């Protein structure tokens, strides 16, 4: 309260400034992503680093060129392109050809971000659209999975189904009891899921690393825990009901897909998530609902990316419906039509 003794000064708003900058926030997100990056290198070898480096380099470069061509001031120093690049790489399998990663990055930055006006104006999460475009374009390359630690062994890379595809088959066969999970030798144990010893995309495998990142972001107050917790909670409740009370089924559903990565790092993107508490709850429940519908009834085993993108598109409407009333206005005021 140093200012108390000062004379009254009159100036234009804003009067209160915080030291937070876009660069600072993005830097925090990058720091929070580092544990998952380390885990992915440990699980999948140094090729995962190459994928991440390719995505980041392409994202930054295409953002730079795009801003130059559009004659706008350059924004690569705010590090948002770096975050997009890392997140996109985290959504790709390690065996993906690097030129596909380049295409995904260009789509994410040029089409989704810069064509709509750059940072703060993208209507959906750029990294997720990059992933979806690759997913629709190259379904084989995007769904060939490498066994964990395959880089350490001298044998050729093994391609197997992800645990999520495995439990999806089990669910459709109708038996998701604890015994069925014990009997299925193709599934990793819950402990292995926690440390990341499973097939999957780069960043999604290690649950512990993602949770460390989540806690860091909460402590630094970069994100509020509302969206991730509601999202995961919704999926947990629905899966518990769908699995007829099978706790194993619920845990596998939460830990073995891209749910943690999506809920913590993608759904909480400032630009594409609601501002209000109420809006956040609606948004997260919607994400959880669509994820479960795709996983349980769709033909794809994974639905996190699609569900977040669909809810991103609905955010303006959620914002309108959950608009908080300015303090002091009468309670039953009818909307005045313009």
């Amino acid at each position, binding site marked *: 309260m140093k200012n108390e003794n000062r004379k009254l000064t009159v100036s234009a708003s804003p009067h209160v400034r915080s030291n937070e900058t876009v660069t600072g926030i993005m830097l925090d997100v990058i720091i929070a992503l580092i544990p998952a990056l380390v885990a992915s290198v440990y699980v999948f070898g140094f090729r995962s680093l190459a994928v991440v480096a390719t995505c980041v380099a392409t994202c930054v470069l295409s953002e730079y060129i795009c801003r130059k061509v559009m004659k706008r001031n350059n924004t690569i120093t705010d590090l948002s392109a770096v975050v997009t690049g890392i997140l996109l790489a985290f959504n790709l399998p390690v065996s993906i050809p690097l030129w596909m990663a380049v*295409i995904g990055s260009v789509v994410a930055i040029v*089409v989704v971000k810069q*064509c709509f006006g750059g940072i703060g104006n993208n209507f959906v999460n750029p990294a997720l659209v990059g992933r979806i*475009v690759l997913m*629709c*374009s*190259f*379904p084989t390359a995007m769904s060939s999975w490498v066994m964990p630690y395959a880089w350490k062994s001298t044998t050729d890379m093994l391609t197997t189904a992800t645990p999520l595809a495995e439990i999806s088959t089990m669910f459709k066969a109708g038996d998701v009891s604890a015994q069925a999970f014990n009997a299925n030798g193709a599934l990793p144990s819950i402990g292995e899921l926690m440390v990341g010893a499973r097939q999957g995309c780069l960043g999604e495998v290690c649950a512990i690393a993602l949770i460390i990142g989540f806690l860091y972001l909460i402590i630094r107050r970069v994100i509020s825990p509302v969206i991730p917790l509601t999202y995961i909670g919704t999926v947990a409740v629905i899966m518990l009901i769908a699995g007829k009370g099978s706790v194993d089924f619920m845990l596998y559903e939460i830990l073995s897909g891209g749910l943690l990565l999506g809920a913590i790092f993608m759904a909480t993107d400032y630009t594409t998530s609601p501002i209000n508490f109420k809006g956040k709850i609606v948004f997260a429940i919607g994400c959880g609902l669509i994820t479960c519908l795709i996983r349980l009834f769709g033909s794809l085993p994974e639905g996190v990316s699609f569900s977040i993108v669909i809810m991103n598109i609905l955010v303006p409407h959620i914002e309108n419906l959950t608009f908080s009333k300015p303090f002091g206005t009468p309670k039953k005021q009818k909307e005045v039509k313009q």
Partner: protein
Amino acid sequence: MAEKKSLFKEFSKGIIKENPTLRLVLGTCPTLATTTSVESAIGMGIAATVVLICSNIVISALRKVIPSKVRIPAYVVVIASFVTIVQMLVKAFLPDLNNQLGVYLPLIVVNCIILGRAEAFASKNAVIASAADGLGMGVGFTAALFLMSTVREVLGAGSFYGMSIPVLSAHPMLIFILPPGGFFVFGLLIALSNKLATKKGKKPANLGGCKACPFVDSCNSANCENASKEEVAE
């Protein structure tokens, strides 16, 4: 002389300045649906052009006979007759194309471009001018379809007009021949054509103001962004 110049103008405006798909954003359904291959896109463009020219001529010739209250059904009857003729011809002589276009060939009846030109132009202008307008719009429509289908077929199937391209055909980006890819390409082409049409201090295209607007009878022009300023002032 003056008439000849304006005739050419009626023709040329449809190609870039008032391109029906990219500038007026009409007829998006066939645009998205038939541009998965160059062959079907050109077929669609030519079929629609033929219908457009013929219906513009007939509607323009009948414009003083058709009562304004039932004009839409009358236009649709005229358009539908030509679509039926075109469809029969395509079925008889180009059965492959007919299979490719499928339901989109008879759907030309409800193509917004044709009804839109009938309403906005042919019903108010002389026969020859209407024919020129129809030809211009048809060429513009075909050109836009050709452009879009080229992008989509080359990237999405790795071929051009059915001929496969060496490197691209090994790794086609399937999304381009799926509906979402169609929307991506369409949006980017609209953005590009808007950029080209408005660059270097050129005036934005005058789309005919209130005279050409189909809603002119039921509209109070004060709120209309398309109304030209003089008309609002009146």
